[in-house]
């Protein structure tokens, strides 16, 4: 035992006697059942994140991830590009629809107020 733990108020003889007393403690050993249970912990408790960690251990895994991400970005870009014509058509249809909505609103206003809103709102 280290000298630094000694109580200065106990004599050297008392310290040595106390060490001997402490050393009479019965030996404590893990039971066979505990040894077995502890040995089987990896089998009984699979690691939830083990797969990811194994993946990172594979050679080139990080580079592979980067390549997959780049390919995914290119695919999305190509798809958006291929849809550009369709989107333009949709925009034209939307403009046409907007004109129809304005006309319908004016008709409803005439029905509701029995007059032209523009005339009523005029100063």
């Amino acid at each position: 035992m280290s000298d630094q733990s000694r109580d200065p108020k106990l004599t050297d003889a008392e310290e040595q006697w106390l060490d001997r007393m402490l050393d009479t403690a019965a030996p404590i050993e893990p039971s066979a059942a505990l040894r077995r249970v502890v040995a089987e912990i990896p089998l009984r408790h699979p690691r939830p994140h083990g797969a990811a960690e194994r993946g990172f251990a594979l050679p080139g895994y990080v580079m592979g991830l980067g390549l997959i991400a780049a390919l995914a970005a290119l695919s999305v870009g190509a798809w958006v590009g291929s849809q550009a014509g369709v989107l333009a058509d949709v925009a034209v249809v939307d403009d046409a629809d907007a004109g129809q909505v304005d006309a319908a609103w004016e008709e409803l206003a005439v029905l509701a107020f029995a007059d032209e809103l523009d005339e009523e709102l005029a100063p």
Partner: protein
Amino acid sequence: MLHALTPLFGTDALPVVLAHAGGASRRGTDALVAGDDEALMLHVGKGDPAAYRALAERYLAGIVRYATRMLGDQAEAEDVAQETFLRLWRDAGRYEARGHKPSTWLYRVAHNLCIDRLRARRPETEIDEQHGSDRTSAPMADKELSAQVAAALARLPERQRAAIALVHYEEKSLEEAGIVLGCAAGAVESLLARGRRSLREQLAAFYRDGASNP
């Protein structure tokens, strides 16, 4: 590797160990098992069962000894040891060295589990409550003497008991014991001094019997 693991797990566990040994990685595993604790901890964090078993081989007995001395009950101590090694397996990936040894981390986990159990069991019994209650002046057989020493240890406040268990029985440095107990090395030294003085007083009857006892 199998030869090294047999003392811990016994022949009953060999099929389990064999299932993980793997012929191709055998040499790498042997090197790993011989490695330092930090390297093993890193591999346990990556889910390596061989590294886990190497650490268990090194520290299971010590954790059981420590928990038994803290709790005074080996069955309960084995529950603590099992939980400690389960946490090693599950949480090693979150281990950060910060200058602390993996073994110190294990003892700290075990210590905290012991304290939880002691708190759940009863309020801490101060040494003065039962001071000197089991003294006897009769010479005793070794087994009885050992029981008296264990009883005297059990009567110490838990932090003094922990300090003696770590420094005397587990041969930890004051700094390592301080990490386990969550205090400075100087505080551990003080706990040790008070604990040893209390033991000296509790076991005074044996000292009067003569320095040859034990």
